[in-house]
């Protein structure tokens, strides 16, 4: 019986240590998700959208010719500042991932190049030099084909981390270990009953209740954490990705449309129209992902504001088709700009709402596991003491 007592206490301590290690890992993963992975993934979407917004505004400024357009210039500068500060936040959050750091260094260098191209195009426009058109087109190429793939690379790496950090493996192993301990306690109680004909050993019963309590608690934390992760990843992050993609497509369309007006094209290029169609189908996805009445209302507003912009965009197309470039320029820098800015700000509001939802859920998940390690230690010590005193009682009785 002394051997059984020692074995059970030992098994309890082993379960406690294993539980501590797994809970520690789980807590680290959840903290990592809150402080690093989630931040990188969400801010990356905003960085992509900011670059796209900056370029659409830069083209508008260029389109305005020597006098420029102060409002669009302000939008361009604000968007570049937001992109730069977003990149700083991402760089501070990626941790010791050399590939991400290398990609971010490239993005920083390309951003400097992009800004210098825009300034060079601006100087050409002020001098009324048409060569600036090619320079602003090159700047667009830098954002679309050089900066964007590097940001995507960082995103892909952190999406893999997200899947790892939201996995529930550690929880399940801990659960199984303590379930095994429960069985061991049950068998001990049964053995004592058979050997000494005592129906209940109170300390062992209390130890069993403590383990059952721990199992219920850890199970409930597990379920609540899964729900939080499902909402953060499944609902909020998917919506963030969809809104970020929507903004990216819309800005691409807007920049291409501005370029068509700049070139005085007789009609809007089919590529521009393809971008518009792609934006509309992405918009359907954004509306489809809305899972609350508030999100539905905001997504509906994004659609209405996009539709208002499409009316202006169609008017630009008609003007260009009729060879009336001056009218196309007037609409582009006037009512189309207003409608597009309104669409952009509303889509960003949707993104910000989902960002808040994402971090609320992740913070909740962090709170849930905050005390897990300490509760495991407390339960382990209590169970070990109770097991030892339970068997000691019988030993004394036997002696």
């Amino acid at each position, binding site marked *: 019986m002394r051997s059984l007592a020692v074995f059970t206490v030992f098994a309890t301590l082993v379960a406690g240590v294993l539980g501590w290690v797994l809970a520690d890992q789980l807590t680290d993963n959840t903290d990592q998700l809150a402080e690093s992975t989630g931040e990188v993934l969400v801010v990356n979407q905003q960085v992509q959208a900011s670059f796209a917004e900056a370029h659409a505004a830069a083209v508008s400024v260029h389109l305005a010719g020597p006098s420029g357009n102060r409002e669009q210039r302000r939008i361009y500068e604000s968007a570049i500042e937001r992109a730069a500060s977003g990149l700083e936040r991402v760089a501070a959050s990626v941790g010791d991932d050399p590939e991400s750091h290398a990609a971010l260094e490239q993005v920083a260098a390309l951003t400097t190049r992009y800004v210098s191209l825009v300034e060079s195009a601006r100087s050409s426009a002020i001098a009324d030099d048409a060569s600036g058109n090619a320079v602003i087109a090159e700047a667009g190429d830098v954002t679309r084909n050089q900066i964007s793939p590097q940001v995507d690379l960082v995103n892909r790496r952190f999406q893999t981390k997200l899947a790892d950090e939201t996995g529930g493996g550690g929880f399940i192993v801990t659960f199984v270990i303590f379930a095994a301990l429960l069985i061991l306690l049950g068998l001990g109680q049964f053995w004592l009953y058979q050997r000494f004909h005592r129906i209940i050993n109170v300390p062992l019963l209390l130890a069993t209740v403590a383990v059952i309590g721990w199992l219920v608690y850890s199970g*409930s934390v597990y379920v609540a954490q899964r729900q939080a992760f499902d909402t953060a990843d499944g609902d909020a992050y998917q919506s963030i990705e969809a809104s970020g993609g929507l903004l990216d497509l819309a800005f691409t369309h807007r920049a291409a449309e501005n370029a068509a007006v700049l070139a005085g094209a007789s009609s809007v290029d089919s590529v521009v129209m393809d971008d518009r169609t792609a934006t509309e189908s992405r918009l359907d996805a954004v509306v489809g992902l809305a899972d609350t009445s508030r999100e539905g209302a905001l997504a509906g507003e994004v659609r209405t504001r996009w539709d208002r912009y499409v009316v202006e965009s169609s008017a630009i197309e008609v003007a260009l088709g009729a060879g009336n470039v001056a009218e196309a320029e007037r609409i582009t820098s006037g009512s189309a700009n207003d409608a597009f800015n309104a669409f952009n700000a509303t889509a960003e509001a949707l993104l910000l*709402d989902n960002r808040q939802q994402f971090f609320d859920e992740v913070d909740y998940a962090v709170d849930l596991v905050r005390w897990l390690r300490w509760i495991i230690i407390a339960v382990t010590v209590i169970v070990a003491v109770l097991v030892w005193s339970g068997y000691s009682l019988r030993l004394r009785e036997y002696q």
Partner: protein
Amino acid sequence: MAGLGATGALALTGCAQPRSVAEQVITADSQLRVLNWPDYVDPSLIASAVEVDVDYSEEWADNYTGQDLFGAQWDVVMPTNWLAAQLIAAGQVEPLPLELIPNHVNIAADYLTNGWDRGARFHMPWQAGITGIAYDPALTGRELTSIEDLFAADLRGRVAMIGEMREAVGMAMLANGDDPARPTPSTAEAGFDRLQRAGSDGQFASWGFNEFADQLRSGSVAAAMAWSGDVVQLQADRPDIQFIVPDNGAIRWFDTMVIPKGASNVRWATQWMNNFYDPAVAAANTSFVQYISPVIGVQDELRAQGAESAALADNPILFPDGETRSRLFTWGGFDDTDAENDLDERFAIWAGVA
């Protein structure tokens, strides 16, 4: 176990389920309490705005000193844009339950792109105005075109100024070539220096608020830094008074509806907001207050009403064209709110409006 999961974990860990914007508690009460600026709504529109009684107050204290906007005493208050930005940043404002405000979609683009609340998730502008220059051509003897005219030697001692720091310093910043939409302590201090230098030279006849309208009417000043809505009303008596948006720009400001944190009647606050974003209601209110409406569709609504309303629809002060709007700057606020408030206090003491 799912149900147990939520409640059990909550009870044992003491942590609350996240209450995101999607799960906001919508309070409701039998009375709606609204705090606004004086003469800023057509009284006939108040009672029909919501289905409950409205306790409407116009007792907004000057400079917001000593006025408690929060808790359950107000459901809708109307801070000016810069104060709304500070309140939102401080978390003192409820997010708008957008699902209850379908007319949110009628907010004009100019009011959606502020860095402090992109997409207007926390506020809905009430009325907007331009702080530009008004003048009496008979007294100036010439046309005024730029902010420098407020500092011109030939108008020394005959210029009335508005004692709002963000507008006065903002105008001086524009004259210095700086951008009040993105102010920094150094550019704002440079603007304040310019005002102080001109002030010590005796350039300004007075610092105040609405008083400039009476001063222009009586001819005691030749020019004034002026609020557009007051000038529209003044022009009814004195159509010869001119209002300009200077070449180097002017300040656009707006007062905006927010729901203070802890408001006891969010439900009817949203109906109030939604009602005033119906273009027909907004047009009626614009006819009364004669400031710029932030609601899409108001110009068309005024035209459709004909007569005097249609004349308002063509008023360039109420509906500035795109070129004019590109010269309007909304104060962007400092990154450091304390530094901004410190400048505000020093300015108010210097201008004698504290």
